[in-house]
Structure formats: C-alpha cells, structure tokens
C-alpha cells in the first residue's frame, strides 16, 4: 500500500489531500505511478500528464525524481514548485 499526498494548488485541482493506493506490478517508479494516476482521466490526466507547471515529488519526505524507485509502504507526495520564504 502506498500513501499518496497532494499539496497546495494540486490538492485543490484534484479535490484530494491524500489517499491510499494498492501497489501493483505496473507501478515501479515515479514515472509509472504518474501514468497510473493520469489514466484516471479528467483533472488527474491534466495534472499528471499535460501540466504546464512541473510537479515536484518526494518519497518518504525526501525530494525524488521520475526514475526514483517505489516500494510498498512509501509515502509519496506530489506538489507544485515551492513558494515559501
């Protein structure tokens, strides 16, 4: 099981702050996870496939990239570029 988190404008776009997702064999890294989420269509496809704003991603609270490997139990967060400070 994966714990997925969404923040800021992405959270609003998806109307979802977090969810649990069953880890199946089609998901091996961030890139394949994004494909699975985009297949939901609608706002999900817009966010994870054709977005103008590059999404950032972290695995277990560490910044990650497209080819970062996912394992069962990971906490994965997607968010827009940060704007603190």
């Amino acid at each position, binding site marked *: 099981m994966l714990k997925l*988190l969404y*923040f*800021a*404008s992405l959270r609003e776009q998806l109307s979802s702050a977090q969810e649990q997702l069953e880890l199946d064999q089609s998901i091996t890294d961030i890139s394949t996870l994004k494909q699975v989420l985009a297949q939901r269509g609608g706002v999900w496809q817009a966010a994870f496939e054709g977005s103008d704003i590059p999404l950032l991603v*972290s695995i277990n*609270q*560490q*910044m990650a990239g497209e080819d970062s490997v996912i394992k069962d139990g990971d*906490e994965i*967060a997607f*968010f*827009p*570029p*940060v*704007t*603190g*400070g």
Partner: protein
Amino acid sequence: MLISVQQEDFDVSAITRQLCAQRKDVGAVASFTGLVRDQSPTEDLVALELEHYPGMTQKALESIAQQAMQRWDIPDLAIIHRVGKLLPQDNIVLVVTISAHRKDAFDACAFLMDYLKTQAPFWKKEITRDGESWVASRASDEHAAQSWEDK
C-alpha cells in the same frame, strides 16, 4: 541549531540572544526577516495563507542547515518559518547565523534563504478582496539557489 515551523510570531532579538548566549567566540550576527508583502496587482491583499507539508518541512530545513554548517564556519544558526494565516506586514520567515567574522555569517544567511525558497515545502496563497490565488514560483529564486552550486 534552532529550527521551528510555527504559527506564532518570533522575536529577532530574543532568538539572537539565545544563539549567542555563552559564546565568547562570536563576533558577527547576520539575520534576514521576510515579511508579508502585498504583490497583488490591485494592492488589496487581505491575508496570506501559508501551507506546508508537515512531515517534510522540518527535515528539509534541517538538511539545508546542515549544508550551511558544513560549508561555512558558523557555530550555530536559527531558521523559523511561520505557517497558517498571516496578515500584510506580518513576519513570515527568520534566518539568523552567527560566526567569528561577518563574511561567514552573511554568506551562510543568504545561502539558507536561497535554498529555503526553492527546497522547503511551503506554499503561499494570496487572499485579496477579489478572491484567492496561489503565488507562482519565480525563476530568479531558482537561479539564486543554483548560483551557490557554482561558487
């Protein structure tokens, strides 16, 4: 190392005194305070909402702080970032660095702010009289952080 993500305001002098207490080797203190600024086109900012990723912000700030302490001769530092609803001119962020000499304190303070702006998971939403909008990230912040890699 004092690192805090909090709703409450902070007091620069109190934090500075705390960092310098019992340290006779400190000859320089540099600090940066970021305030809520009205950057909406119609200048009618009502409030700024600061969202963050609670599980990650503390870790991200600690990682940035450790990088600064490895790179410069700073025996201690403080980073305080506020979250929640803030009003125009409220404090948002504080970075304080202490050192024997000014250069390390200045450079480390600037580095911490540049890195914090691009790597710590905070997001600003502006609330104006007309509605709400997320603040867009700036390429100039990205360039500022990138420039430290080349130094």
